[in-house]
């Protein structure tokens, strides 16, 4: 079996007595788009943060392009992070900077590019997400939620990363804007040939952007397969989730009235 571009092997992470990741194992081949589905609080975001090194796993191995990345520090970590782009759930734009400075941030601060050149690239990336050059001069607070998401996407792809993470890219958007974002994600990823991991609980989004789907439940991957087999997974957990049923093997901690 050839090793995937991103491989997680038995990753554990606890916060105090709370075990969030209970041995997550996962492999994403190069250029593939993996969508991780799962309910709130199942460890999706924590998994991404472990891969990025924002959180340090308690045990287990994370390999990117064959290299172990857990515990990287200093220059090696900077070089590692330069290969990533990430679109955050709330876009996480820097509100003290204008839109183009947000998009160009990684180029100017991370790669020491001259500001005029970085600005040109930022304007081009904004165009790719359907925003005109005049938007570049605005500040994030002046944008609607959908526009903020698009700026966040432009920022994530600005440095042409080989790996992109999408954290709930469509949450909080109307269905049409959600579809616009999905299309942009598919386009941008195809153009860059990037490997991506997205986490979402929006099934329409998952079907649109996924090559493969993995389902996480209680800190473990309980099912993984090609996106077109998700309706015939034969897994009761997956069935319950994709059809959004309250009754099934996944029991929510909700008191019955």
């Amino acid at each position: 079996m050839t090793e995937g571009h991103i491989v997680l092997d038995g990753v554990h992470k606890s916060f105090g007595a709370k075990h969030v990741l209970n041995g997550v194992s996962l492999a994403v081949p190069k250029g593939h788009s993996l969508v991780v589905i799962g309910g709130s609080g199942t460890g999706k975001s924590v998994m991404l943060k472990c891969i990025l090194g924002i959180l340090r796993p308690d045990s287990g191995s994370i390999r990117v392009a064959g290299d172990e990345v857990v515990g990287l520090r200093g220059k090696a970590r900077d070089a590692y992070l330069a290969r990533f782009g990430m679109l955050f759930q709330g876009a996480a734009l820097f509100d003290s900077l204008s839109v183009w400075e947000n998009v160009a941030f990684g180029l100017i601060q991370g790669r020491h590019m001259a500001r005029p050149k970085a600005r040109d690239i930022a304007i081009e990336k904004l165009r790719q997400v359907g925003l005109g050059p005049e938007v570049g001069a605005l500040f994030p607070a002046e944008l609607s939620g959908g526009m903020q998401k698009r700026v966040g996407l432009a920022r994530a792809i600005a440095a042409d990363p080989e790996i992109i993470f999408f954290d709930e890219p469509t949450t909080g958007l109307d269905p049409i804007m959600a579809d616009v974002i999905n299309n942009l994600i598919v386009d941008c990823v195809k153009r860059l040939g990037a490997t991506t991991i997205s986490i979402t609980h929006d099934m329409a989004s998952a079907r649109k952007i996924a090559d493969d789907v993995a389902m996480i439940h209680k800190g473990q991957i309980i099912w993984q397969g090609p996106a077109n087999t998700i309706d015939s997974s034969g897994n009761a957990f997956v069935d319950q989730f994709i059809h959004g049923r309250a009754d099934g093997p996944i029991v929510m901690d909700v008191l019955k009235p």
Partner: protein
Amino acid sequence: MNILAHIGRASLSLLEEVGRVTLFLKDALVQGLTPKIFLRQILIQMMRIGYFSLPVVGLTAFFTGGALALQIYLGSSRFNAESLVASIVALGIARELGPVLAGLMVAGRVGASIAAELGTMRVTEQIDALVTLATNPFKYLVGPRIIAAVVTLPLLVGIADTIGIMGGYIVGTRSLGFNGYAYIRNTADFLEIDDVTSGLIKAAVFGFIIAVMGCYHGFNSRGGAQGVGRATTNAVVSSAILILAANFALTSLLFAD
């Protein structure tokens, strides 16, 4: 038995907090104050921490100098030592009240704003976004604030000393009947260079405390608006207490001769 458990729990959580601050301090010094240096950020922070604090610190110093002159006049006139007013005002402002009051005012103004800004950046994932853009948050956010506070606080206190002595001068000449020339003469003759430098050294230490506590509480804020509010309060309270404690320690160890 219950009381002992309470004392134990409180002691443990205090030690835990001290440990966390120490670890943060280590990161702030090792990562934040080593290259690469974000000059632009340092200049922006110097404006915000130093320049924009001038009105607050200036007014505080002015009124304190005036009140001090009145009080010392009241006390010294009881044993016919009114001529001491000028020199004691100068000494009190330069050695003690200038740095401490400026430190406390800046702790309220700047410590709170640092904690609120970084706290909001934390809860909206902007700090994580920095990491994914290959920018170390300690270098980009913490380092510039520490450098700016340590550099500008002594400058602020230098100005506060001048204004405070001037406040004393105005009260002394306008309402206490001192001769203007004699008042300045008295001030200049009694004040030694050590009096001023000891205050400026204190100011640099206070600036360090304010920036570190603001950044620490901002960085570790959790849970939305309430968490940011708590971080802000904790930043101000802890830096104010540490300033007063450090003032006592510095005075009794270094400058009490």
